């Protein structure tokens, strides 16, 4: 039996040609001034600078559309932590994207109450309507708005209850940069027990067999 060359990484846990990346220096990363100032402001809110990691990653995502590696390096340089530290944080959270996504984000709830009201079909409708557009559509776990099931979060704002035709309308409005579904905005909704609140027939439940096809 011939001997294969053994990868040193297997025995030592280190790759010979790769050095561990330390804390990058600010002058190495080309951090835009506004981003640096924002992250410095965030760091100043906490007794320990590490606490600013999620807010800093939000700032990176706001600037680049996702947590791009160069953005993470910039944030790491300002925060004086390693990029790996911030990557570790970013990968833990569903809303921080470590891959490029569309400029607009639609999250459709497919959890229990929304599923009962047709959330899976709504997700399909959004996916179909967003085909070819610069809009990221994803199923999501409970968004905390079961009162407006089925619902979606569109660029961070909540809308519901949505019918399948609302999906196409919303995507058109998003792409045209118009106000999205003004009548369906959660903010305009009265309390359920108040006058002005309407009762509505609960939609027929999803077909049991079709409902468990994967949606995410």
């Amino acid at each position: 039996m011939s001997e294969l060359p053994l990868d040193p990484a297997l025995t030592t846990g280190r790759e010979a040609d790769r050095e561990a990346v330390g804390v990058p220096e600010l002058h190495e990363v080309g951090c835009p001034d506004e981003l640096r100032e924002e992250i410095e402001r965030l760091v100043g809110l906490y007794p320990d600078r590490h606490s600013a990691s999620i807010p800093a990653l939000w700032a990176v995502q706001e600037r680049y559309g996702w947590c791009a590696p160069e953005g993470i390096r910039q944030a790491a340089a300002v925060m004086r932590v390693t990029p790996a530290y911030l990557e570790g944080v970013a990968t833990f959270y569903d809303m921080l994207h470590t891959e490029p996504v569309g400029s607009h984000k639609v999250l459709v709830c497919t959890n229990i109450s929304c599923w009962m009201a047709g959330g899976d079909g709504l997700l399909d409708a959004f996916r179909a309507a967003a085909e070819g557009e610069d809009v990221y559509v994803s199923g999501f776990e409970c968004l905390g708005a079961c009162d407006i099931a089925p619902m979606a979060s569109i660029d961070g704002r909540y809308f519901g209850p949505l019918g399948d035709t609302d999906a196409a309308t919303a995507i058109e409005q998003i792409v045209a940069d118009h106000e999205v579904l003004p009548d369906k905005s959660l903010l305009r909704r009265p309390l359920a027990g108040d006058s002005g609140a309407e009762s509505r027939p609960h939609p027929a439940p999803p077909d049991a067999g079709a409902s468990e096809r994967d949606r995410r």
Partner: protein
Amino acid sequence: MSETRMLLANAEDPELRTLEGYRRHGGYASMEKAYGEMEPDEVLSELENSGLRGRGGAGFSMGKKASFLPRGDMDKYLCCNADESEPGAFKDRELMQRNPHQLIEGIAIAALAADAGRAFIFIRGEYATQADILDAAVAEAYEAGYLGDGILGTHRRLELVVHRGAGAYICGEETALLDALEGKRGNPRLKPPFPAVQGLYGGPTLINNVETLSNVPHIVGKGAEWFRGFGTEQSPGTKVVSVSGCVTRPGNFEVELGIPTRELICDLAGGPPAGREVKAFYPGGSSAPVLTAEEGLDLPYSFEDMAAAGSMLGSGSIIVADDTVSIPHMALRTARFYHHESCGKCTPCREGTNWTVKMLDRVVRGEATPMDLDIVASVQENIIGHCLCVLGDSMAMPIGSMVRKFREEFEEVIAAAGPDTETERLNVVRAPAETLGAST
């Protein structure tokens, strides 16, 4: 039956969101009383005497929790848990959106009782609208001298930061919340030490839910005795209950604890659509064992009665399933949530949620045998109590209850739903990669 609105009083007024509007309805009077006329110990004993129980899920006495914080000069912290992520729960969203200053006032008073100089509101990242509203309200409160240095002319200081999470159910677990707030991945910590002794940045920390803290101004303003006039002996006060699922008027209803559950579901929330019947419901969010209509509808809605029935009031979130809902499919939907949200730190939860999803998936695809139901049930037993936090238990309890109470329905689904086509059979083979991988 009508609501008893204390926390949601005047919530229909859009101006309530502003400092001026809140003050017009009597806001910040309790804080002025607490900071001006009361000693911190008096505030603490008022909270203890009120019997207020935590509204986040565990139902532990809020005053007692605050009294666990040691005295001394060390830095102490208060964290408001606004990471409401339990399926079925949306009450904190309503409270923050409609009345942010009530929460800020509650935080300021609780911070006085706990002698905390820094407070954080950890709000889930999805609640961007509510976080914006809170940010604006916090800025107003600083401006008006309710926060910052020398509050209301005293020597006291309180800094309050609204900290947005980024999408992780586990961060609602109090020690995971602390890790997330310290800038780490949100993994739970081993307890003890409890946060009251060693919490945020190693300092004593009081962690309370949004609704719990929103009760504080009312208790301090009108007194513990007055507060005890609402609700039951063991569950004083009102509760904002989120009702959703198969009801015609889903939403948040504020009621006195102890009202018949049927009134909440069938009167206030409108009940199921005509011609359909309540089959089962989760009385306290998706983590609560389900109750059948016969078991649960006529029980008083209180912490003690739900516990006696083998379930829990939890966060006060009712999800109703009517007779058209397939319980096995609902079980799969529930298990998937916990599988997705398990942080992966403890084996019983990480593996248990994974295998439960796989087995329930087989059940609804007709690939399972009735023996598999026993395995599903035994997996649940092997999760409960064996992890650092209760996320795994939160799946095990409802799934266990569904298999136990609706076993015949599971067996029918197994018998009836055999895969019809080659494609579906292939889907079963593909399931681990496509349907079970990290999603969203």
